[in-house]
């Protein structure tokens, strides 16, 4: 676009060159930033590079000759900063999944609005839209608007404004497929006839509806995949914006975001042993008819005193945190328990299942917040071999990710899902609110095993009592 900017002559070329140099620098800094994230000790520095890149790109854009009025821009920057600041500084770590979901919404909304503004400007100025540009604009508003509403629904479910159970009705998939097909037809028509304004706005409106109907049938337990997928879509919308307004920086940043979301959704669905299609269209959270073999026996309770005694003499302890830990806000209490065990010469590690929590890596953040050194937070692959030598495994608010039925019971809906081998530890304590089932609604035979003892009640309360008891020993 440099050549057509002309008119004013040499100075404009110089300014445009400065802008392009800032964009190039920003692209490099973004990639360096992500490279920093491959190690915990370089991650912060990496993100500082990325933030510098963002600043450069914004300054470079403000230098562009096309920008003639700064009032609205200044207003937008101020309002956005006023809203963004508390979203950055105040939101608690437990609320991170919904925080990320809502920010996907903001990102996608920005891309969508830029697309609509661009389309409107073309038509208003009577400039014919070249078909390849129209295709990019179409992708932009499609991905953008379905991500806006989809993320908002995900936010609603995670914030518990909406029921976390899947909302389904008869013929849902057929209707969804029909709506989706209709949208693709409108898209194709638009590429052929870019000036068909009503079709453009109809397509945008329908894409908003698709976002809603895509996320409503998905249960709360599947949110890690949904958030990752929406992450990817938001990135693709940004990339499409780059194609539409001829900006390589947008394409690069969007592609990085798209790749990241895509990789995370694959990791998440592997960790649940399910395909994308199954998560999106399976409505997994619906009650399961039969889970193969019925579990027999009784869950055996243990008193806090006895549990504290056993932990005090344990040499190797592994703590297995699940979403229940975050719900109970018990991160700090876990750390205090670990301190007591370590004081008596025991060794404590943490086993983190990839889908523990409501988004990828959520549990690690929560435990890091409680000042637990990250070397002690181990992935499933790293720690599974260590369970047989473990004296006590303490399961806190986790259920399906420690259910041995995933290994043994072919009839179980979670059969084949990789799990933490907690049942191979010498003894298991399970901290659990009540006798209910997990997200998937499946009985857990681990809870009925001879080596398992249950500690009922609020996790935070139980942990605090355990700590007090161990101090008194």
């Amino acid at each position, binding site marked *: 676009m440099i050549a057509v900017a002309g008119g004013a002559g040499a100075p404009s070329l110089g300014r445009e060159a400065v802008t392009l140099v800032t964009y190039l620098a920003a692209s490099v800094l973004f*990639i360096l*930033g*992500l*490279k920093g*994230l491959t190690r*915990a000790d370089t991650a912060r520095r990496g*993100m500082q590079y990325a933030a510098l890149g*963002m600043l450069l790109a*914004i300054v470079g854009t403000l230098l562009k000759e096309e*920008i*003639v*009025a700064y009032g*609205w*821009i200044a*207003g*937008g920057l101020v309002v*956005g900063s006023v*809203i*963004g*600041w*508390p979203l*950055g500084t105040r939101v608690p*770590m437990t609320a*991170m999944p919904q925080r*990320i979901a809502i920010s996907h919404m*903001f*990102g996608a*909304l*920005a*891309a969508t*609005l*830029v697309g*609509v*503004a661009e389309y409107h400007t073309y038509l208003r*100025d009577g400039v*014919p839209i070249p*078909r*390849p*540009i129209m295709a990019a604009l179409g992708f932009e508003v499609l991905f953008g608007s379905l991500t806006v509403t989809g993320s908002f629904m995900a936010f609603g479910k995670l914030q518990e404004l909406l029921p976390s159970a899947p909302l389904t009705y008869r013929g849902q998939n057929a209707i969804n497929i029909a709506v989706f097909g209709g949208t693709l037809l409108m898209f194709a028509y638009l590429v052929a006839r870019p000036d068909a304004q009503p079709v453009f706005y109809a397509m945008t409106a329908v894409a908003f509806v698709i976002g809603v109907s895509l996320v409503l049938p998905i249960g709360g337990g599947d949110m890690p995949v949904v*958030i990752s997928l929406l992450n990817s879509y938001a990135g693709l919308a*940004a990339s499409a914006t780059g*194609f539409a*307004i*001829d900006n390589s920086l*947008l*394409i*690069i940043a*969007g592609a990085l975001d*798209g*790749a*990241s*979301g895509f*990789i995370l959704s694959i*990791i998440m669905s592997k960790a649940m042993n399910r395909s994308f299609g199954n998560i999106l269209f399976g409505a997994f959270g619906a009650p399961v008819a039969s889970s193969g073999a019925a579990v027999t026996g009784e869950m055996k309770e243990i008193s806090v005193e006895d549990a504290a005694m056993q932990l005090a003499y344990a040499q190797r302890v592994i703590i297995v945190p699940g979403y229940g830990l975050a719900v109970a806000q018990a991160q700090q209490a876990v750390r205090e328990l670990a301190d007591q065990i370590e004081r008596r010469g025991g060794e404590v590690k943490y086993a*983190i299942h990839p889908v523990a929590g409501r988004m*990828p*890596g959520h549990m*690690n953040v929560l435990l*890091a*917040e409680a000042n637990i050194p990250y070397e002690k937070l181990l992935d499933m692959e790293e720690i599974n071999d260590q369970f047989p030598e473990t004296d006590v495994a303490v399961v806190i608010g986790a259920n399906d990710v420690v259910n041995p039925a995933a290994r043994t019971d072919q009839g179980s809906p979670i059969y084949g899902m990789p799990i933490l081998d907690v049942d191979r530890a010498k003894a298991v304590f399970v901290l659990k609110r009540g006798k209910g089932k997990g997200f998937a609604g499946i009985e857990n035979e681990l809870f009925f095993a001879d080596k398992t003892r249950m500690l009922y009640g609020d996790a935070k309360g139980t942990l605090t009592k355990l700590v007090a008891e161990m101090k008194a020993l």
Partner: protein
Amino acid sequence: MLETINAEQLALVNQFLKLFVFVLAGFVGFLVITRVPPLLHTPLMSATNAISAISIVGALVAAGSDHNRVATVLGFVAVICATINVVGGFIITDRMLRMFKGGRS
């Protein structure tokens, strides 16, 4: 070489060049991001979200070009949304990463 190409063909060639950029950037992203440990997956998502708020660049142009009122207002709202992610996204990512401390402290 004097044959003229129309706007449509120029746009097509242009889009293809951009497709190269997209595919290569996606490839770099894939190679780098598969090496991010699960430990940092939440900061990763928050970081890429902040980075993709780069659509602020398009929003600034829409809001500041004085094309027409509709574009200006849509651009204004887009600047707000993108700024929320730039400011909030980088701050919260840093807040998280600050918490990840090594042992022997």
